[in-house]
């Protein structure tokens, strides 16, 4: 009788547990789904497609693997100039041209590839031969731009009284009253190694090493290194320093925080701090510092120390003092008393007890934590640098704000990723070495 009761009891209990499990099994996904639906509307994900600027994405992608050369004719004086990305430092010297440009008397012929030919003719006249469409003739006059396009040109031509812009797969031609411009896109980062004013531009590695000396004043290797390092377009030296600055910010912040936090952690650990009040007070400081968060510390400190890497390093230092203090004191609370007792039994003084009883126990834990934070702070230093203006983060935001040097943006991104991965494996390697040894 009682057996039967117990069995029924057990069964109802099991049923209840199962039903609860079933309900949670359905409720959790349902709640998540409901939340995501709410987010869909709160974040206006539906309107995203409308707001998305896919042309921006296209420029970004195209720019990151190609460069464009501007061929510009001043329609007032008929002078034609050639400049990579339209920048002064990428301008071809007078009399020299890219090899896809030929001159016949005063005429300039620009070969955009695939049969697309642009002729600059006298008196502001320009013709553009588009394969499969025909030849477009334009003439820039003092008050307007004449064309042979008729009333309804195709969609890839944007024509008005004073301006004509033609965009094809091969390039872009625009004519205004004052100037005629042709953009030709080419693969690669042309000026990455040397700018056009360097004698080493467009010289192969082999001929650089074995060929004749190009600059009478300097040997080829020294000269090439100097010109590469001081490249005005890509600023290799500055970028290198910026990366160093970012790593330095992370280094100073992390290790500075560890130095500050270690003595404080002793004061916050239950088995080392004799006074409850001190322990409580130090712990609240840790909580406060962690709660205020890196962003607010960055803002507060940048008011005192001005923009630059110093603020970034100090912001990391202050924030991580809180995190380190908390985790160090936890590690100290977990030390084994036996080792301390053993050291005490040999008649060691308190300082010696700490040195030989406590420190050897916690060092591996602390070091591995410090190195882990160092690695993650390399990333944080990039972000903080973007806010306070220091390191590679600043370069990245600056390049992004101009919204045209996307090849530099992708270059910086690659550098940042490499930097973080190198720090990652360095800290992993050190952690393995230190903790085993």
């Amino acid at each position, binding site marked *: 009788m009682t057996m039967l009761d117990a069995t029924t009891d057990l069964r109802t209990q099991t049923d209840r547990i199962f039903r609860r499990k079933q309900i949670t099994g359905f409720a959790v996904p349902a709640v*998540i789904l409901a*939340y*995501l639906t709410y*987010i869909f509307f*709160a*974040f*206006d*994900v539906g309107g*995203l497609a409308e*707001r*998305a*600027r*896919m042309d*921006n*994405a296209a420029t*970004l992608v195209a720019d990151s693997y190609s460069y464009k050369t501007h061929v510009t004719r001043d329609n007032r004086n008929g002078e034609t100039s050639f400049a990579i990305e339209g920048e002064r430092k990428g301008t071809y010297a007078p009399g020299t041209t890219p090899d896809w440009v030929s001159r016949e008397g005063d005429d300039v012929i620009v070969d955009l590839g695939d049969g697309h030919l642009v002729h600059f003719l006298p008196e502001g006249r320009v013709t553009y031969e588009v394969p499969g469409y025909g030849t477009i003739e334009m003439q820039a006059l003092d008050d307007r731009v004449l064309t042979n396009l008729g009333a309804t040109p195709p969609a890839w031509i944007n024509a008005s009284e004073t301006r004509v812009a033609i965009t094809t797969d091969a390039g872009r031609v625009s004519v205004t009253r004052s100037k005629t411009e042709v953009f030709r896109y080419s693969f690669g980062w042309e000026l990455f190694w040397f700018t056009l004013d360097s004698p080493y531009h467009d010289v192969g590695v082999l001929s650089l090493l074995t060929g004749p000396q190009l600059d009478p004043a300097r040997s080829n290797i020294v000269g090439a290194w100097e010109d590469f390092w001081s490249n005005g377009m890509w600023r290799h030296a500055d970028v290198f320093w910026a990366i160093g*600055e970012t790593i*330095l*910010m992370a*280094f*100073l912040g992390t*290790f500075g925080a560890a130095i500050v936090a270690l003595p404080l952690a002793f004061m916050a650990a239950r088995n080392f701090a004799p006074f409850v009040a001190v322990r409580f007070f130090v712990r609240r400081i840790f*909580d406060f510092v*962690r*709660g*205020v*968060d*890196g*962003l*607010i510390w960055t*803002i*507060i400190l940048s*008011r*005192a*120390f*001005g*923009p*630059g*890497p*110093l*603020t970034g*390093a100090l912001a990391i230092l202050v924030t991580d003092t809180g995190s380190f203090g908390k985790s160090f004191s936890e590690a100290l609370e977990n030390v084994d008393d036996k080792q301390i007792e053993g050291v005490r039994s040999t008649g060691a003084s308190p300082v010696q007890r700490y040195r030989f009883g406590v420190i050897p126990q916690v060092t591996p834990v602390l070091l591995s934590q410090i190195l882990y934070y160092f690695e993650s702070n390399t*990333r*944080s230093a*990039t*972000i903080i640098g*973007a*806010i306070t203006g*220091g390191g590679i*983060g600043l370069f*990245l*935001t600056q390049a*992004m704000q101009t*919204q045209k040097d996307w090849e530099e943006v992708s270059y910086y*991104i690659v550098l*940042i*990723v490499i930097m*973080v*991965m190198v720090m*990652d494996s360095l800290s992993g390697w050190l952690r393995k070495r230190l903790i085993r040894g």
Partner: protein
Amino acid sequence: MADVTATGGAGVGDTRDSYMAMTRRKRAYGGIILALFVVLMVTGFQTVEARSAGGFWEGLPRIFDFPAGVVREAWDRIDRLPANLLTYFPALIETINIAAVSTLVGAFFGLILSLLSTRGLARWPRLIPLFRRIMDILRAIPEIVIALVLIFILGGGPVPAMIAIALHTAGALGKLYSEVAENADLKPVEGLQSVGANWSQRMWLGVIPQVAPNYLSYTLMRFEINIRASAILGFVGAGGIGYELRNAMTFGQGKFDLAASIFVLLFLTIVFFDQVSSHYRNRLTQGQRT
């Protein structure tokens, strides 16, 4: 007999000598590393100071000027504080939402990536290195990089920040998850395989129940981190409380009560979620122990 004692004594002497030599060498190495470290810290600090606009010693006394100014202004207009807090509350909700969604999405992808890159569980064992590399790269790219690129394409707002944090979360959680999954017991998986379960069934019924408490605890910790990250990304233009903070800062003196209310909101939020998450994490790990 005499011979034996003699050599024995010499042996002890040798041992002691070599021990002392080792200790001395160890001390010397320690000293060198310490000296190197101190030199690095000092020169590094000087370099950083030289490359900054302001100096350390000039700035130090001014640290409290700004917080004091903010507190003073906030105190003068303390009556406006509730209204200000209410004004910025929607922005705070947005920041928390960004963190929550990106944690959810990141955890989902991190889960898949971790199972695909754990030895013994992977669907395609040959592709393990590929998925590990994917996670490494996702972890390595700082959120701000993806966020800035996406802001350029998608315009400002919460979605770029959400995607940026979610990608980073997927990489970071994927690594932690796969470390847990490596220690999972494979017997349930084999049992399920013997009754003809396919890969997703084996994972869902054999692995997930074992690792769920640890996974949840890591996810909660990530959520804490992501709240901070989403506030920071807001500051570079991705919406939420960080964006409001930047605006409030540009208003400058006389409007610091707005900044103060944002500081208060942010501080309370971070502390609140810290406490909640550490409470639940403790429960999860302790539940596992009993």
